[in-house]
């Protein structure tokens, strides 16, 4: 019996027709042939479709919470605005932030910062972005194998958080017998504290698109998809403008995300791209072998692709040499209690202390920092001189992740900060597998009950529940979802007495 699954047109059709509003599923079912219950299941999965009537979406991510998001939420409620507290909007440098009904940002904070133009930086957010695309020409001159060799020599690791060596994915897709292949850009940036891909797309759209064109050419893909956060309309416009300028010999299609953090997980992203609920697939098979529509697919984060043109131009060894403890440079986001929040392109392995110097220093007395988004938990200031790289942070029981660094000063109760993280994961778990679905609720319930009466008994099972979430969950979300609470309890016992 043939399954009637979605298709790439489904999500857009649902959005146009009104998301989860009554009658929409039936109408869109008539247009698409997808069963109406299935469509309702899709529209209720994605927050932007599930709640089409919201007028103001205020971010309750860590940096926005520190900057007074909850006061803004209360005020909007009091004024009768249909307001919704939402997961990180990727505007942490301009916190607190919100989106209006058209999903355009409402910014209450200042503007974020980047380093001044410097041609020695691979991405160089401050530099001029042009449609020159000389690296693509060079790539075609030296050949695909030579390009992949440079990527290998560069030691380029995936910048989305997992740090997987890029060249293995490229070779993996290139060596498939199937010739219909895809490249997918993961521009669904949503890890709390992370807003680097947003800046790349806004400031250097040509860098990313040129990297995409090189990757597609090297692995033999004719079609590329850019899966972009629905909340990043300005980024999409910047990319579309750049595409119109460059007119690459590659079919580039855009796909708007509709509000689901889990779709940053590559196989959930593929499900979403196919018009379904964004629930991660079991692996293997990996996308390089069976990805979008079952075809070999190269999936990369925006930043990873944006590194490619400079690697091709200047060579893998040059890029590798930019790093201090690991290969290359890295876009570090920093927000929270620092003077100049922003995105700073620095050698991999800088310490928090150095990063904060670029960001103008601390605001108040620093107490804790989260090195790589909510999934990395919190570290105390004793780690201020630890290299911010993949290996050192893993050894510290944390992770570099997407390098979304958030600094918290001593005005913050770490139990409260842990709660923000657990609320985030309970809101964003997809619900497919029991360890993560039930575990995220248990952890959030534990910290809520603790904050209500400060009885540590409520936290007795946090560790054992985390153990099973780590052991039994299908994807990485469940494996790391307890870290805000677990790390806060470990490193800040004073806030849990």
């Amino acid at each position, binding site marked *: 019996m043939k399954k009637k699954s979605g298709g790439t047109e489904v999500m857009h059709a649902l959005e146009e027709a009104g998301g989860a509003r009554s009658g929409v599923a039936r109408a869109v079912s008539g247009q698409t042939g997808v069963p109406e219950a299935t469509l309702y299941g899709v529209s209720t999965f994605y927050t932007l479709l599930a709640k089409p009537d919201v007028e103001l979406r205020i971010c309750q991510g860590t940096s926005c919470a520190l900057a007074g998001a909850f006061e803004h939420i209360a005020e909007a409620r009091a004024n009768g605005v249909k307001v919704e507290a939402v997961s990180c909007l990727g505007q942490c440098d301009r916190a607190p932030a919100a989106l209006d009904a058209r999903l355009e940002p409402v910014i209450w904070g200042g503007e974020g910062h980047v380093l001044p133009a410097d041609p020695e930086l691979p991405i160089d957010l401050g530099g001029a972005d042009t449609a020159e695309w000389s690296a693509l020409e060079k790539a075609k001159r030296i050949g695909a194998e030579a390009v992949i060799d440079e990527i290998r020599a560069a030691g380029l690791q995936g910048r989305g958080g997992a740090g997987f060596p890029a060249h293995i994915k490229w070779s993996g897709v290139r060596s498939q017998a199937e010739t219909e292949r895809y490249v997918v850009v993961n521009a669904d940036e949503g890890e709390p504290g992370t807003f680097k891909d947003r800046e790349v797309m806004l400031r250097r759209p040509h860098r990313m698109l040129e990297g995409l064109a090189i990757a597609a050419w090297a692995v033999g893909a004719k079609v590329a998809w850019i899966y972009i956060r629905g909340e990043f309309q300005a980024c999409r416009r910047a990319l579309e403008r750049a595409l119109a300028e460059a007119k690459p010999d590659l079919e580039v299609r855009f796909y708007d995300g509709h509000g689901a953090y889990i779709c940053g997980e590559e196989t959930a992203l593929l499900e979403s791209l196919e018009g379904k609920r964004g629930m991660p697939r079991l692996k293997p098979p990996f996308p390089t072998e069976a990805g979008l529509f079952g075809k070999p697919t190269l999936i990369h984060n925006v930043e990873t692709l944006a590194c490619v043109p400079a690697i091709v131009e200047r060579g893998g060894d040059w890029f590798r040499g930019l790093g201090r403890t690991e290969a290359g440079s890295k876009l570090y986001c920093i927000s929270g209690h620092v003077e100049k929040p922003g995105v700073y392109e620095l050698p991999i392995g800088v310490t928090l202390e150095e990063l904060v110097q670029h960001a103008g220093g601390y605001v108040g007395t620093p107490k804790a920092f989260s090195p790589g988004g909510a999934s990395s938990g919190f570290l105390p200031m004793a780690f201020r001189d630890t290299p911010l790289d993949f290996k050192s942070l893993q050894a510290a029981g944390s992770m570099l992740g997407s390098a979304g660094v958030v600094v918290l000063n001593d005005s913050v109760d770490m139990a409260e900060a842990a709660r923000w993280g657990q609320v985030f994961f309970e809101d964003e778990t997809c619900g497919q597998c029991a360890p993560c679905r039930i575990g995220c609720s248990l952890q959030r319930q534990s910290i809520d009950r603790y904050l209500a009466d400060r009885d540590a008994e409520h936290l007795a099972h946090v560790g054992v529940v985390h153990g*099973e979430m780590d052991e039994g969950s299908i994807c990485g979300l469940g494996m790391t979802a307890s870290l805000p609470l677990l790390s806060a309890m470990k490193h800040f016992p004073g806030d849990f007495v």
Partner: protein
Amino acid sequence: MKVIIDGEAVDFELGETVLEVAQRVGRSIPTLCHEKRLDPVGACRMCLVEVQGQRRLQPSCTWKATEGAVITTQSQRIDTHRQVLLSMYVADHAVDDQGLPKQRGVGNQLRDQVLEYGTGPQLPQLPLRRAVREHDANPYIHFDAEACVLCAACVRYCDEVEAVNAIALVERGGRTTIGTADQQGLLDSSCELCGGCIAVCPTGAMTERPSLGIPPAPEPIRSTCNFCGVGCQVDLHVTDGRLTRVTSPPPGTTVNDGNLCVKGRFASEFVHHPDRLQTPMVRRNGVLEPTTWEDALQTAAKGLLGVKRRHGADALGFVSSSRCTGEENYLMQKLARAAFGTNNCHQCAAT
């Protein structure tokens, strides 16, 4: 080809999963979302095993056996995983006075597994976050969100076996539930009320509404459904002399492969209905009177032969019910042709 299961080399066929091979050699691996008629999804996480060379535990229901693969189905690591996972399921499930998952419908496998494998620490109960369609007025299928483990077997059955797609996973995260388009009642959906969702539900979250609260009979009576000629086998649950529930024999054992339709599963009120005919009746002088089979058949034969004698055999026509089996239809046409000499015979389902 051989795969090593708990140290024992076991033959397998290409395409077999670790679960299939392990069960064949008598290993006990618990599952909740697994159902033979459905594609495995590895979502309930109960069947995880150790695969040598893999850092993470892997779902045996989807992991294919390969030559020389080393699988462990029993270890301290797996015990701990199962027990804590069961604790978590229990925290998200309606429990009885003893803290065990409530017994429902034709049984609750979650309860069985808690009793068999034990649990980890007792975790605080979570409030019910799954929506239920309280306004759903359908007479047959009851959904109790408190007992749902979101294995989605019902959703997958409705899709993969019935191709009806009346239900789907709706909402997200802890609020995920089994729903319909706009959460309408099943009567306003594409549902055919076959009740297959009930048959595949491991916990009794989906139950027969007419049988709510009635436990299954210990020894159901195997019978043949008499609604059509397919010959589906049914198990009749009889409690205190009354038929309380109809279920299918397990998949793979009878012609209906575990499936039933709305009539076979639910349309059994006639069994105890006061209007039901319980003896043959003959109309004499315009009044129906109870009689014996012998008398009824003699009377019918006499009447039919009388028509033939007065008007010829082709004045007779024989129509059989769509509830007759193929064999019965054969006999009916043979009666028409051989005993009465007419080809006027018809089967009412032959349209």
